[in-house]
Each structure stands twice: as structure tokens, then as C-alpha cells.
């Protein structure tokens, strides 16, 4: 009997601990990031195989990242000059590229402690600062820029040690577009994604 109660208590505890992770906190930017962090850590620390983890992280990433915003920002003014078909083509290619290149980073994770250290308003957005502790080294400061989207938040930029992901992409893409034109850029994005999928990080 007591065994069953213990089991029951364990199940309840499990549900309670999992519940806050499931519903994103849309009222407070700091809690939102904490929630995403817990979701990601739950996957990372789980016993699933690498492929399953990747699928799960990909789902979280696409749910959390404001891909629409990031893609448009990364292409800059050129985006407005594209035909609707090209825009669609580009956004699809960008989304694949972004998730393929970013999500694979999880393989580098090995138990570092991540703390949310602060938040500040940034125009209409919020910057949420996190710190990744490293053994015997200074922590890495990663700032997430949260945008309000659909009654909740989405991540519009990831800034590591002062280097913004979408700003770097904008410079990168602009350079390729200058050399190969916009269609060349879209093709390069697709090629890179394909290449990356075939030869992911060890």
C-alpha cells in the first residue's frame, strides 16, 4: 500500500515538475526564458538517443524562434525587392538553414550551468541576459532578445558575447548576395543546409 502511495506521489511530483515547462509564461520575459531553458535542459538531460533529442530540440527551437523576423532581418532591404515567390523560397531555405545550423550546437552541451541573470526593456522588446558557467573559465554571456508575438514572446535574436546572430547573418548574406545575386544566395543557403545535414558536427 505504502509502495503504491509512494509511486502515486512520484507521479504527481513528476507532473507538477513538468507542468510549468509545458505552459510558456507569457507575462514575464525572464520566466519565459527560464521556461524555455527548462524545456531544453529536460531534453538534453533525458536518456533519448541523439536523433530523438535533435527532433525534440528542433521542435522547441522552431516554436520559440521568431524565424519570420530573423529571416527578414538577415536579408535586409533586399527582401522587399524579391517577388513573393522568391520571398517564400528564401524564408523556407532560411528556416531550414537556421534550425539545421543552430540546433546541432546541443552536442557541445555537457552539463554547464545556465542562469538567467537579468532582463531589461529594449524598445518594445526585452533583452534577457543569461550566463553559461564553465569549469575554470569565465562564464559566457548570452543575451536573448524577446519580441512580443501572438500574445506571447518569441526569440528574435541571440547575442553571444556581444555578437548578434542576425546581424552577423545579415553581413554574411549581404556578402554572398553581392557576389552571386539573391538567387545565388538562396541556392547557397540550400546547399549549405544540405551539406550540413549530410555532415553534421561530430
Amino acid at each position: 500500500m505504502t509502495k503504491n502511495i509512494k509511486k502515486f506521489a512520484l507521479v504527481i511530483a513528476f507532473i507538477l515538475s513538468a507542468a510549468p515547462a509545458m505552459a510558456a509564461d507569457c507575462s514575464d520575459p525572464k520566466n519565459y526564458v527560464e521556461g524555455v531553458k527548462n524545456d531544453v535542459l529536460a531534453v538534453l538531460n533525458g536518456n533519448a538517443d541523439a536523433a530523438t533529442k535533435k527532433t525534440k530540440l528542433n521542435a522547441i527551437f522552431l516554436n520559440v524562434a521568431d524565424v519570420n523576423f530573423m529571416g527578414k532581418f538577415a536579408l535586409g532591404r533586399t527582401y522587399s525587392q524579391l517577388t513573393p515567390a522568391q520571398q517564400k523560397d528564401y524564408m523556407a531555405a532560411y528556416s531550414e538553414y537556421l534550425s539545421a545550423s543552430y540546433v546541432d550546437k546541443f552536442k557541445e552541451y555537457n552539463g554547464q550551468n545556465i542562469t538567467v541573470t537579468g532582463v531589461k526593456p529594449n524598445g518594445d522588446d526585452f533583452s534577457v541576459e543569461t550566463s553559461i558557467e564553465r569549469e575554470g573559465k569565465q562564464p559566457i554571456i548570452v543575451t536573448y532578445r524577446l519580441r512580443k508575438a501572438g500574445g506571447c514572446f518569441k526569440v528574435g535574436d541571440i547575442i553571444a558575447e556581444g555578437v548578434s546572430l542576425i546581424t552577423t547573418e545579415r553581413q554574411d548574406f549581404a556578402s554572398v548576395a553581392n557576389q552571386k545575386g539573391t538567387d545565388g544566395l538562396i541556392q547557397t543557403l540550400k546547399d549549405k543546409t544540405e551539406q550540413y545535414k549530410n555532415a553534421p558536427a561530430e
Partner: protein
Amino acid sequence: MKNKILILLVVFFASFSAASANEHHSSSPTQPANAQTSDATSDDAITQADSDYNYENSDPAEPVNRAIFKFNNVIDGVLLKPVARGYKYVVPQWGRARVSNALYNLTEPVTVLNSVLQADPQNAFTSLWRFILNSTFGLLGTFDVASDFGLKPRQEDFGQTLGVWGWKDSDYVELPIIGPSTLRDTLGLGVDYVSNPFYNGMVTDNDYVVYGLLGIRLVDTRANYLEVTDQIDRTSLDTYATYRSAYLQKRANDIKNGQSRAVANNFTNSSPQTSDYPHSNNRP
């Protein structure tokens, strides 16, 4: 000592000639359009928004820089990267951390000097005390005991000092072997080298020691950046443009002591009420 100055001159000459090759063709940076338009829904608001990092992506000597970048990649591939990987393979993380700490400790005098030049007495004293505590109790800097006392490191160099003095944006320069830099930071690198008692002959005039330290520093730095460069090399479309952008952003952030506009300044630990800020969640 003469050798060292000669090397410095060569580095200087290489970088300046690289930059002046196309000097009158100064590229104009994108003009800041006001990013915070009221209509957050429109594509134009996003695509024409300037980055929060309003640095000038000025690279008048791009063809020369790209050539040096290619050269650097070859050297990196056959020499620096394999050595760094070997170092990482042979020496465990604990040992590498001791080396990184000791090398960092040798830069503290430069940080003290530049904090003073930047009229930042707080960091000057922090750095000075870090140097004293870590050099002694930290066993020649191998252990960062000062951090445990709340004296956190913040490296300052003469390139940053020039930035604080007003030279915010500088033409990009790819230095042989050393890699990404700017005119400002190349000058800064020279001054740092000359002003560092461990490298300028003040502490030791033994060239083997000085070059040995510089060599270890090169390997240590390369090893520390392996993960970052692997990631960039794998994912970026034009690695040269990506490194250039990342370097310029990082330096702009360093000059502002990590307070770039998009990196939060005035962080508070309490979350502000979201309702205090205008809503703009009607995007597609």
C-alpha cells in the same frame, strides 16, 4: 629586443599598406534608419531596421584582406589548428585552464594601464588587486583566486582605449597569422606589446622566454577558439564576412564594456512589468 621591434614594424607595415591600398575608396556604412518605427508589422520595418550594433562595416582593403585571410586559413589548417587540437588532446581541461589563467594574468598590467587611460579607476584597482592576489596566492596566476573575492576580470587594451577616446569605428584589417583586426586595434596591439612588462624586456630580456610565452599564447588562444571557429566554418556562407562581422561587433561590445545597445545595459534582476511597455504583438 631589436628583433621584436622589427617584427612589430613588419606587422605594422603589412597592415597599413593593406589598408591604404584602397584608402580613397572608403566605403560608406549603412545609414541608421530609425529602427523603432511604430508599425512593427511591416516587412520594411524589419528589413530596413538597422542592427542595434551600429558599427561601420568598413573594409576598404577587402581584396587584400581576403587574400591574407586565405593565406591565414592555409596556415591555420596545416599548423595552428592541428597544434591546438593536439594540445587539447594531450593536456586535460584542468591543465589548459591553468595555462589560460597564467597567460591572462600577464596581461593584467596592460589592463591596469588602459583602465587608467580610460578614466576607469574601478577596473584599474580591480585589475591591480587581481594581479597582486593571483600572482601570489594564485600561484603565478594559474588560479584565479581573485574572482572568488568578487574581483572579476575585464580585459582592457589600447585598442579599446582608443575606442573610448573616440576612435569607435576603424577600417577592418586581416593581419597575417593573428587574423581579424582593425587599423585601430593593430596600433593597439603594438602599444600593448610594448607596454607589457612581460613582453617588452622589462621583466626578462631573454628572447627565448618572450617568444616562448608568445608561442604558448598563440596555441592557447587558438585552442580556446576551436569550438567557435568550427561552428562558424561549418555554418557560415562566406566565412570571411562572418569573421569580420563577429570581430567588429565583439570589439564594439568590448569598448562599451559589454554594454552594447542590444546587449542589455542596466540589467536589473527583477523583471519589469510587461504592461508598462506599448504592445506591438500584432505582427503576422
